[in-house]
């Protein structure tokens, strides 16, 4: 009996430990919640590190990005809609960067679900993507984000104390950059500060 109990405990511990990291989340991140723990490698490119306000190397969590709002696009180079919406995402980035009141407050990143670094690079070069893209080759990030379809956008608002909340989580691309940016600013509360 004791042996069976030991076996059961070992098995249960293994399942518990791995299930928190490997198993897929049951649903996409919810508005009002916080992001699941995602560790990304600090980008190699100086310009990307500088854009995100990150140290020289190591790993970081998305809420550590130096900004008030981070927009995260879950994409794949194999996804036709992501391909078709790439120019809209670029326009969104340029609208933010061209606005002195927004450029330090709002940042944009992409996570390539199931894409290798090479595939992400191909996507970036094909569409001249100016913002940082990260590879999620084994779908591990995609899994903890509820295996969403692509393109999918998540918006988080980072508070002064380093905490954050998801204010937007929805299937679909940018489509209309003007409307999308306006929506993000309103939902995040940034627009109330008179930045646009």
């Amino acid at each position, binding site marked *: 009996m004791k042996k069976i109990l030991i076996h059961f405990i070992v098995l249960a511990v293994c399942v518990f430990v791995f299930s928190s990291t490997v198993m897929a989340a049951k649903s996409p991140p919810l508005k009002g919640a916080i992001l699941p723990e995602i560790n990304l490698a600090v980008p190699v490119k100086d310009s990307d590190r500088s854009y995100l306000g990150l140290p020289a190397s190591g790993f970081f969590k998305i809420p550590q990005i130096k900004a008030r709002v981070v927009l995260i696009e879950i994409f794949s180079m*194999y*996804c*036709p809609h992501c391909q078709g919406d790439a120019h809209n995402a670029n326009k969104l980035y340029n609208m933010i960067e061209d606005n002195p009141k927004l450029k330090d407050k709002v940042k944009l990143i992409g996570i390539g679900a199931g894409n290798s670094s*090479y595939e992400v690079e191909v996507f970036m070069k094909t569409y001249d993507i100016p913002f940082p893209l990260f590879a999620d080759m084994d779908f591990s990030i995609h899994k903890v984000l509820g295996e969403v379809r692509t393109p999918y956008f998540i918006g988080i608002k980072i508070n002064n104390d380093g905490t954050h909340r998801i204010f937007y989580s929805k299937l679909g691309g940018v489509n209309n950059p003007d409307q999308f940016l306006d929506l993000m600013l309103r939902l995040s509360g940034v627009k109330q500060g008179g930045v646009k």
Partner: protein
Amino acid sequence: MKKSNCLSILLGIVLIFLLGITSSYGLSDAFKDNIYHPENLKPTDSVLKVKIGDRAPDFTLPAVFGGKISLSRYLGKKNVVISFVPAAWTPVCSDQWPGYNIVKGIFDKNDAILLGITVDNIPTLFAWTNQMGKLWFSVLSDFWPHGRVADRYGVLRSNGVTERALFVIDKKGIIRYIDVHDINKRPRLESIVRELEKLNK
């Protein structure tokens, strides 16, 4: 550690591994809810009938956008990549060719063309590939006689669909690379690029 305890840990690892296997492919919203998700399949289920160094068997198949295409038309002119995918409207297949569709430049640079082949019929392939945007490469139907070309290459599975297989054929018509991939997974783009670049060395 006792043998029985080792067994428990092993069982745990196996269970965790199985729990971790989920289909994350076919996730583009371009396909909406129209993707059929099969169970995890046996990785490969056929025996190759060609090998690297062989002359690639010629074939003529109908193309989705009209006419017929023969492999021999590229002899002495272009390197050829053949991408067999198992079936339309399935997750990994729907997540493979759209990626190839944005790398025409890589194929051009390596003087290569791409032929996509499945055993689906033309109307099915028409509806499916339309969701991928305008494809620059030819999609061929090996529907009838069912899977004859796939069988000639040895990539027809026992249930009538093809393997997820890549063949790189040089301008002399010689097979230079074969990847009969795990049907449940998408081959990395870099493997094709690497093999194409080898042809030019």
